[in-house]
Each structure stands twice: as C-alpha cells, then as structure tokens.
C-alpha cells in the first residue's frame, strides 16, 4: 500500500466560506414560530436562549446555518430556531451533518445531541466525526439520564444509580465525554454549563471559530428525572471548590486560588495546595498543546460519581486539516485538470476502453 502527501490547507476560521449577514441581526429573527415544549425548568431552555442570543453575534446569513439533531429531548432544538434544520434519527446526526458539511462549504453546520444520542446509540458516529475533523460544532447536552424515554440511566450516569431500569443500581461504568473525545483525536473539546450564560456563549464563539469538529459538552439539568445532578457545580456555596476553570495561558487554580493543578510524579496531573507548592509550580493551561496527554489527564479529574468536581472550559483547541475541506479540494483539483463540458466528458468516459463499431 502507498500513501500520498495531502496538500496542507492554511489556517482558516470555522466560518470562513459562509456568507456574512448583510447587517445586524436579532435573537428574535432566529426564533421560529413553534411553541417550545420542554418541561418547565429544563436546562434546555437556557441553552436555547443562549444560542438564539449568540447566533446574531456570529454574523452569518441565517439561511446558511443548519442545525441537525438526533433523537431525545435536546434534539427538538432545531424546530425552535428559524434556520435550516433537520431532526433526524437516533444517534445519526453527526453522519447527516458530515454529508451536509462535505457537500457545502458555505454552510455553518451545528449538531445538537444528548448523552444517550451521542454516546450510546450514536457513539460510533461521534468518534468518527471527531477523528475526521469535519467542520461542524457538536453541542452535547449531558443531563446524565434518559429523559424522553422517562428516566432510565444513560452512558454518563454514575455507577449505582437507581432508575426505572436499574432498581438495584446501575452496574454500568460511565463515559467521561471529554476523555472520550480526546481519545478520538478531537481537535476542539470544551465543557460548559447550561446556567452559566456568559461561559456558555464564550465557548460557543470559540467552537464556531474553530475549523474542524468542535465538541462542546454542556452540563444540563433535567428537573424531572435527574434533578440536582449538577448542584455542586452550580451552588454558590460549593461551586468554587467543584469547578476547575480552564483558561488558556492561565494557571489552573480553583477554590478561590488556594488549590491548583500540578504535574504528578507519575506524569499525570494532580490537585495541590497553592500555598504549599507555590504558584510557579501550578500548571499553566495550554489548550493548543499538540500532545493531548495533559488535556486528557485534566479530564480525568472529573468526578464520575456525584459531580462535585469538574474541569470546565476549553480542554483542547488545535489546528488540523478538516475532512470536508480536503474532500472538496480533491474534487476541485480533479475538476481543474479537465476540459470540456460535463456532457462531452461523460461521452468520453462511457465511450472509453476497447470499443468496436457496428454499422
């Protein structure tokens, strides 16, 4: 077998090639006329509001934005946005979005999915989208429960969780979505929280600007089937100790600056008292590190049981050629090397090979 050196495209923004809006837009323009039908208090409302407020700032033509979703509560999202959209089938949104993004450079493609949709039934498509680095942004609403089917445990539920389908407690070991994405060669991986509009919006902006597959895990509360799952990182009394904020170029400290992340003896990352080790020993977050090892080590600090500790922010943001740019470039290269109308070239193609004429 042989390999060939692929042309390396220059660095480009995630939205390059998508036409800009003619003028300022409003969040109302991005709201469809459909009644929003999530349960009262659902975290999805907050995310929808944040996205509807963010899209005008993105400054793209509304008709060039496409939202694709799978199945689940969060997957109703596209119906509420007045853009192009498809509410598809369970777990398959990344594959449909791959087709859209590959077919059209001039579209800004978004996927809305949940922990069941993306990590259970659609796990295969998620990891392959990340590996290929198709230019799209995936919003993974993680409520750590199955909502639409009324309360079974999900692939991010903590072990031992008692649900309708696990009366004696779940014996499934959960996924850490960020670790999974990093392991799948993702070029952009972030985590944010439904109720933190400011942080959520800043992550959305960075994700949209990134050319490639951006995975944004959004902790999202389900008030009906898993209420309080994220209380420790939301409660004003506890969040300073529970959230480890990641800011590129800044030392990774939390608990009001008293604790920080340091390099562990085994090469991993561990939590230390800043007073004991000194600020200079604290890791400075480097989201652009080509080597994902440290980002992965940081992701492992996420508590997999009751969530009382979680790094939040952009774990990794590195440039890598995208599948769709390269696939389109191959087509364009092939096209630029031929002359004649498609009809003439078709006649030459099907009339090629060994032929004979009967008169």
């Amino acid at each position: 077998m042989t390999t060939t050196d692929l042309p390396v495209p220059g660095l480009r923004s995630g939205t390059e090639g998508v036409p800009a809006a003619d003028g300022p837009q409003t969040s109302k323009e991005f709201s469809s006329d459909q009644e929003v039908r999530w349960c009262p208090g659902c975290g999805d409302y907050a995310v929808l509001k944040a996205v509807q407020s963010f899209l005008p700032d993105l400054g793209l033509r509304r008709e060039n934005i496409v939202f694709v979703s799978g199945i689940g509560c969060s997957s109703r999202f596209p119906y509420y946005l007045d853009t192009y959209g498809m509410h598809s089938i369970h777990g398959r949104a990344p594959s449909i979005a791959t087709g859209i993004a590959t077919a059209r450079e001039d579209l800004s493609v978004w996927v809305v999915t949940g922990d069941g949709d993306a990590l259970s039934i659609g796990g295969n498509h998620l990891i392959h989208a990340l590996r290929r680095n198709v230019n799209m942004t995936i919003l993974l609403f993680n409520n750590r429960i199955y909502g639409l089917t009324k309360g079974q445990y999900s692939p991010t539920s903590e072990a031992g969780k008692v649900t309708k389908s696990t009366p004696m407690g779940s014996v499934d070991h959960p996924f850490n979505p960020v670790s999974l994405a990093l392991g799948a060669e993702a070029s952009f991986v972030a985590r944010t929280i439904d109720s933190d509009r400011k942080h959520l919006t800043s992550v959305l902006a960075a994700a949209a600007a990134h050319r490639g597959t951006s995975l944004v895990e959004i902790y999202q509360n389900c008030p009906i089937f898993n209420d309080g799952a994220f209380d420790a990182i939301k409660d004003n009394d506890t969040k300073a100790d529970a959230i480890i904020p990641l800011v590129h170029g800044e030392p990774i400290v939390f608990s009001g600056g008293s604790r920080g992340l340091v390099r562990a003896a085994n090469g991993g990352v561990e939590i230390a008292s800043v007073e004991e080790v000194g600020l200079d020993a604290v890791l400075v977050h480097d989201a652009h590190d080509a080597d994902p090892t440290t980002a992965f080590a940081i992701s492992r600090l996420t508590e997999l049981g009751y969530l009382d500790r979680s790094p939040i922010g952009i774990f990794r943001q590195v440039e890598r050629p995208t599948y769709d740019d390269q696939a389109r470039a191959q087509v364009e290269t092939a096209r630029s090397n031929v002359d004649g109308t498609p009809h003439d070239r078709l006649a030459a193609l099907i009339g090629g090979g060994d032929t004979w004429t009967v008169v």
Partner: protein
Amino acid sequence: MAQQAKKVQQLDRVIIRFAGDSGDGMQLTGDRFTAESAAFGNDLVTLPNFPAEIRAPQGTLPGVSSFQVHFADHDILTAGDAPDVLVAMNPAALRANLGDLPKGATIIVDTADFTARNLTKAGYADNPLDKVGEPDDSLGEFTVHAVDLTGMTVAAVKEFGLSRKDASRAKNMFALGLLSWMYGRPTETTVAFLERRFAKVADIRDANITAFKAGWNFGETTETFAVQYEVKPAPMAPGTYRNISGNLALAYGLVAGGVASGLDLLLGTYPITPASDILHELSKHKAFGVTTFQAEDEIAGIGAAIGASFAGKLGVTSTSGPGVALKSEAIGLAVMTELPLVVVDVQRGGPSTGLPTKTEQADLLQAMFGRNGEAPVPIVAPQSPGDCFDAAVEAVRIAVTYRTPVFLLSDGYLANGSEPWRIREVDELPSIDPAFATEPNHVVKVREDGTEETEFWPYLRDEETLARPWAIPGTPGLEHRIGGLEKGDGHGNISYDPGNHDFMVRTRQAKVDRIAASLPPLEVDDPSGEAKVLVIGWGSTYGPIGAGVRRVRKAGFNVAQVHLRHLNPFPNDLGDILKRYDKVLVPEMNLGQLSLLLRGKYLVDAIGYNHVRGLPLKAAELAEAIGQLVADAEGVSVDLTPTTAQEVS
C-alpha cells in the same frame, strides 16, 4: 502471429470455463478472453464465480475460482448452462467443475499441479489423469488434453531470470494464449493490456507477454490440438459497443444521472461485497463533481447521503442486503423527509452474511416492505450488466423528480457479469430537473394595501407528481425544519393530528403510485399473439428467461414474455397484460417474492419457478418448466428435444 496451418471448424457458439485456485488469476484470464472476443465482434455473456475468501486454502475445493464465458455468432442471453470446454489449473478445479460438464466436453488440464498432495487436497485417491483410457476412467466421457502448462511456461520465460515461483505465475497467460489460438481470438488487446498493467515491472511484463505468445504457438505447433475453431462475429444493431460489467455500468449510470440533472453527486457508503466496485469506480470520477465518502458503517453512509441531499446534492448510498438491513431506519427518514436518494442494493445470497460472492434476488420484499410504518419506496431493477446504466439513470430520474428514496436492485450476477453494451449517446439521457425552490409558496394573508404576506411551506405539493419542494440551505426566506416526526400537510410542522397522519400516509403512497404515470407501456414479447402462457420476471433472470422462452418457441410452441424494470410502482398496464394469459409463470432466484406481490395486487394465480442456488437460473431447466406449463395450458404434449443437432441458446 503465425499463419493458421490446421483444420478450421466453424461453430456458432462456445462456452469456456477457466477454473483454478483463487491465486491462479482465473478472473483476469477470463476477462482478457472476454475482451478479445468482444473486440472480435462476438456476442457474449460472462459468469465469474469465486469464493468469498481472498485466498482460500490453496489447492482445496473451496478455493476454486472460475470464470465462464459464452460467445457466439448470434445474439445470446446467458452465460450458458454447461461449458463446452473446461480449463482446469489444478485437481480441485477439475473435481469442482466436472459435474457441470456435458458428455463430450473438452478438458484442458495443467498436469503440473497434479501432485499427490494436491490430489489429496481435492479428494482424489488416485490421479484421474493416470486412468485416462482405462476401464475406470472418470474422465472417459470427455476429450482430455493433459498438458504441463506450468512447465512450458517456466521454460518459455527462462530468459527473464525469474524464480520458478514467479515464472509459473504466468501460466494463466500461457493458458490464455492456447485458448486464444484455439478460437482464433485477436491477440493485440491482451498484449496491449499486459504492457499497460505491468508497465513498471519490465521482467514481469515481458514474462507474461512471452507466456501468452508461447501458449498461442504451442497450440499451433503441437499435434495435441488438431483443430482450430472459428466463431464468426455476431450481427448487432448499429452503434459503438464496449464490453461492460454491471457494477461499472451502474457507476457510469450514476455519473450520467448527475450530469443529466446538473447535480454533484455524493456517495456515502461502506465497503461490502459485491457492491464495493461501485465505490472504487465512483472515487475515480471526482472531476464530475463526485464525492465518495467511505463511512464508518452502513448507517453513516446513508446518513451522509441524506445530508448531502438536504444540502442540494444527489445523495447515493450503495450496499448489499445486510447493509440495507442496517440502513432501513434512515431510508424511513428519507421517506418522511421526502428527499431524493438512490439506494443501490447489489443483492447476494442471504439471509445474514449468507453467500457474499454469489447471486440472489431475495431482497425484493426487503426493499418493498423492510421498514417500520407505511414507508413506500420506488424500486427499479436492471435486467443485464449493460442495462445497469439505464436503470441507474432511471433511479436518479425518479428520486429527483419525486423527491423520494429509490431502490436500485442489482445483483451479484449482474455486478460481476459482463456483456457487449451499445454505448449510449449522451443526448439520449432524459432531462432531470432538480427544480430547487427559490420563492415562498404560501400566502399567509393579503394586507390592506393589496400586497401579500408569504412564507415557505415545505410540504406543499406539485399537483401532478405530488412531489414537495426541494429548498436547499442558502436560499433566503425558505428556512425550514424537516425530520422524522409526522409532518402537518402543507406547512410541515410537527403534527400529531389523527386525520393529518392518515392523510399524509396515504399521500406518501399516492406520490409513489403516481410514478407509474411516467412509465412507458410494457413491452410484451408475444410474436404469435397466440400464447396462453406468460413468463414474467425481473432483474437478472432476464437472460435465462429469454433463453428458455426461445427454446420453447424453437420447438414450435407459443409463449409470451414480459420483464419488469419497475417493481414499485408496477406499470399501469401490467394488470391488463396479466389477465390476457391463462397461465403466468414467475421465475425468480428466491422463494417467490414477485409472485407474492403479483398475487396480492392482481389476484392472479402466479406460478413460481424458484431456485436459490447462488447461481443464475439454467435456461434448459427453465425451458422444461415453461414447456410443461404450455402443455397444461394448451392440452398438448410438449417435447423440447431440439430438432437439429445445434441447441438454441
């Protein structure tokens, strides 16, 4: 090459089967012989037959690979039931194919591989070649030429200094040269082919060409072969021809569909036998705006194709039966979202993994019904390798015009088989208009000043076709959402209204039914107009059915034939045609799937003729079944014994 010096005997047709170990290059040998015959102007039909394993254990019966080619001086329809000549490169190839040979057939054997070990592997206690002429000669009914093809090949290519192993690899070209001499095939195409294929390895190239020529010269000089045969070119309709396999024709047809519709094509697919060659071929045609996406699985393949269709491209996915099973939910999504999509199913033996490299027609009901809910999908089937081109264009026409997924049901025999194909003129292609929506199509209200407030309704339909508008992202003012949930009529918003659901289910069915209005009348082949028996088929059984019908007619009896390209919807005139005949016979490579559909729709007493052997139907056996039915229908006795020495084909 040298002048003919031997007796030349005229034949009107010959069936040759090249058989050897899977590593012996039999497919290539058959391919080249076919190309030579095509260049000579014979009509021909081929039947490759190979194991699913890439290299099954060497020298064993399961490892035997064969290629049958039927060539004639007249129009033929099948690869032939039984070979006149068997070329066997080892004991296993001899043993595996012997049962298919008619009395009097010629066998050419490479003796080099008839070692004790290989004989044992093939299940021979003794060397059958040693018994030739003895009382217990298992080959007594045949004319056997036992020749050391390998030894002569190695001797012929000695000058190139190859190892014996490498040198002996050219034995298939030696065999090809010998057979090319026997049947007076032109040699230029093969020499040119070898020069191209091995352009970068001079010694291999020269060894193969030398072996090929040595095989020819051996035929001419040795006394083993006393007769050279001649099969004259077949008269064919005017036009320019090429030899083409079904998968190649199908890939070309998809490219043509893209050109005819002005749409770039995106193939989302996952490799699967026997459909992978469609991916390989389309991946070469990026200059036509073709993107091939090799997905992580069958579902992602169709998912990407649906996404591309939503984005305004021609979405295509290609697979075989097991892949269709995985794609079923996504096909349902395409039915619900009413997006153009071509689903190519190159059928193979099933169920489950079944017989990956063998042919079957048992996915018809899967294509027809294999989804949850009422999810009608149009079905188009090609009838011969070359016909895959036209069938693919037709599938694109229906998909784009009616905004619907369409099944294109090929099969393993069509995919790998080949025939001379009259190359289509590009201006013969139908015009296919994507007719993208560009404007709002619904008036919300008329304002006081007389102007209209309008919006876009994605499920407002064309009155004639019932197709919905295709509004692609990037079109301002037409932003809309579609999905798998039931749509409200017209506006397309989610609707759980009972009456609306009933209406939409019926409307989706009615849209598919409307396609029949765009189809030409069926061509009923009933030369006398007096037949009481109609034989009806679909797909690759066209050849065997046609050949069987010819035999019956040749024996002096009447029988009508009609072949279906469209399985869903059926053509509008099919019901009337079925009623005109007393008996309807439905030969299929399944247990009666078309029969079931015909019985259900037309209340006709369709009689099945069904084989699921992984091989095409045999024309002679089918002719007997047709003859029996003619006898029943007409109250006569039917004897199909040919009246002349030469059987019809």
